[in-house]
Structures are given as C-alpha cells and as structure tokens.
C-alpha cells in the first residue's frame, strides 16, 4: 500500500488483487447474514476497490491497513443495504448455508458493463481513461495523442473515475 501511495504501479496492483479476495469473502458472508444472495457481492467488491483507489489519500500511513479497508468495506455495505431498503435485522440465519452453497468463487464478474458505464461519462474523461487506464499509455503520451495538456489528462482521469464510481453506486441496481 505504501509503495502504491508513492505511485508504484506494480505494488498498487498486487494489493487490490489480494484485497479483492478478502473483500469478496467478506461481502458474501455479510450479504448472506443479511439474508441477501451473493449476486451483488461482486458489485460491492468493485465499488469498494474503486473507493479504496479514489480515496487512498485517506489512508493514514501510521495506522494499520486492514481497519482502513474494512471501514470502507463496511461503509459500502451499510450504504448498499440502506439503498436497497432492508436492515441487518431481518436476517434469517437458516438461509445462510443455503446461500453460501451457491457461492461460486469463479464468478468474479459484476453486473456492470464497462463499455456501458464508459458511455455515460464525458467524452474527455472517457478518452483520458481509455488511453491511460485501459491502453496503458503514459500521461504524456495520452496528452500528445488527445491534444490535451498533461494536467488536463490527469484531471480528466480523476473526474472520470469519480463519475464511474458514482454511476456504479447510484445506478448499479434498482
């Protein structure tokens, strides 16, 4: 995480891969306890990964990483449960096993369609994310190709990711 905060992409990639496994287990367990199926757990995993990424400046380096990650995960879970109108109280515990039986760790695909989500953000941000985040160009290459300044590219990416996060948390489910 620390290396990721300093801009080390390799380290920043290893972390979410590890985290996504923990988060997936966490959300599936919690959703089962709340009497929900695991269908939305991958959405929550992705939403949390985006939150961890866009809010990484809220990680206090003097503190442990796990409480920070779980505080964010818990927030996203509570937000989700509230949004979908039900509380942790109506938890039929008997169902838990049955729901867990449906667990399929291979199904790590959320209900969001990236292309569809991308079509909802501004063209500038879409282009910047396309170049830098999906095609892996450097910021300066993307700037040269799109004719924007480097800082404009960075700002566009930042705004675009925020917009994507909003789209996912706002419209991902009914």
């Amino acid at each position: 995480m620390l290396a990721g905060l300093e801009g080390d992409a390799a380290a920043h990639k290893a972390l979410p891969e590890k985290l996504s496994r923990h988060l997936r287990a966490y959300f599936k367990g919690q959703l089962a306890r709340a009497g929900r199926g695991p269908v939305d757990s991958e959405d929550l995993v992705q939403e949390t990964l985006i939150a961890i990424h866009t809010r990484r400046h809220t990680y206090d380096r003097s503190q442990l990483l796990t409480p920070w990650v779980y505080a964010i995960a818990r927030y996203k879970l509570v937000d989700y449960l509230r949004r979908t109108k039900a509380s942790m109280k109506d938890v039929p515990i008997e169902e838990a096993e049955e729901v867990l039986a449906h667990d399929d760790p291979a199904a790590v695909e959320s209900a969001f369609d990236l292309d569809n989500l991308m079509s909802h953000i501004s063209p500038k941000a879409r282009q910047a994310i396309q170049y830098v985040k999906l095609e892996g160009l450097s910021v300066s290459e993307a700037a040269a190709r799109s004719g924007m300044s480097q800082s404009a590219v960075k700002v566009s990416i930042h705004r675009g990711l925020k917009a994507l996060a909003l789209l996912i948390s706002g419209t991902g489910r009914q």
Partner: protein
Amino acid sequence: MKTEQLIDMLSTNVEPVDRGQLQRTLAWAVAIGGVAAFCVMLATIGLRPDFGTGTKLGFLVLKLLFTLSLIGVGTVFLIRAMFPGRDARRPFTLAFLPFIAAGLAGMAALVLASPSVWRSMILEAEWAGALICIPLFGIIPFVILIWALRKGAPTNLRRTGAVAGLVAGALGATAYAFNCPHDSLPFIAIWYGTAIALCAVIGALLGPRVLRW
C-alpha cells in the same frame, strides 16, 4: 465488468498522493468559515460598542472559551472522521464537556443570584437574537466544512454531519459573541448552547445526504 479488468484499470499509471492534504484542507475550512461568519456578523448586526472594556471583555472571553473549546474538540473529531478506521469516539464524547461545563457554571450563577433576577438573567430580549443569528452565521461555515469533509471518507455520516453542524454553529456563536449585548452565564449556557445544539441536529439530519460518497 470483470474485477480483474477493474484492477488493471485502477492500477495503471497511479499518481502518488499528497500527505497531510486532508488535515490542511479541514483546518483551512474552519479558519475560512470563521472569517466568513465574522464578516456576515459585521455586515448585518455589527460589533458591540466598546466590547473590549471591563466586565464586557470578561464575558466576551467566557463566551469565546465556550465556543472555541467546541470548535477545537469538533475539529479534532472531524479530522479523524475523514480517515476510515480511525477511532473518533473520544473527541466525540469530549464535545459534550463544554456544554456540561457551561450548564454547571450557569446553574451556579443562578444559585448564587436571587430568584428575582433569574428572569432577567435568562429571558432577556436578546435570546431570540442568539437563537436566530448563531445558526444563520453558521450556514457558510457549514457549507465550507461539508465541502472539505467530502474530500475525505467519513464512514459515520450522521455523526460527522452532527459535529460539522456543531463546529459551524460554534463558529457562528463566536462571531455572534462580538455583538451579543447580554452578559450572564445562564444566558450563555442556555441560548448559546441551544443554538449550537440546534445546528448540530440540523447537521445530523443533513449529514447522510450531503456527505455520502
């Protein structure tokens, strides 16, 4: 969308983050909010004439002691609240202390005074002024604080909203203290306390809506 795809997307070309940015932002928000509240006070009701003399100065100091202690504790809470996973229970509990201290001081003053002056100590005509002006002066600080808090990641939105309201109300009360023509401890405890608590309640109601991320 596959999670792996998302991870790839997020981890390509990561920008390093600036340390200590959030704390600075919030500290500036409190400072700018205070200046804004003071300017609104100057523009509307103006300074109290000769507030810097004798007992008037003494009571001004008492009022500021009350409001500034709330601002201090509240700011500590808000800074912690912006970081998920950090324990902010202690400053939240401490935020009740100034209210208790002011209440006790107010009661002591009432006990020491004769019951015939109680009415004038509490129900001076200015109480409505305090109740209206303090929340009004707190509006701009509240907006600035919410803006700053949204840069962080508060996880308890109702509580964070309440403390944001409390700090905004205390900033409003700080500005109001420079006009407030009424000097009595029970007055400060009851009307300043109520006005600031009212701001905290409004903040708690708005918090989940305006702070969600």
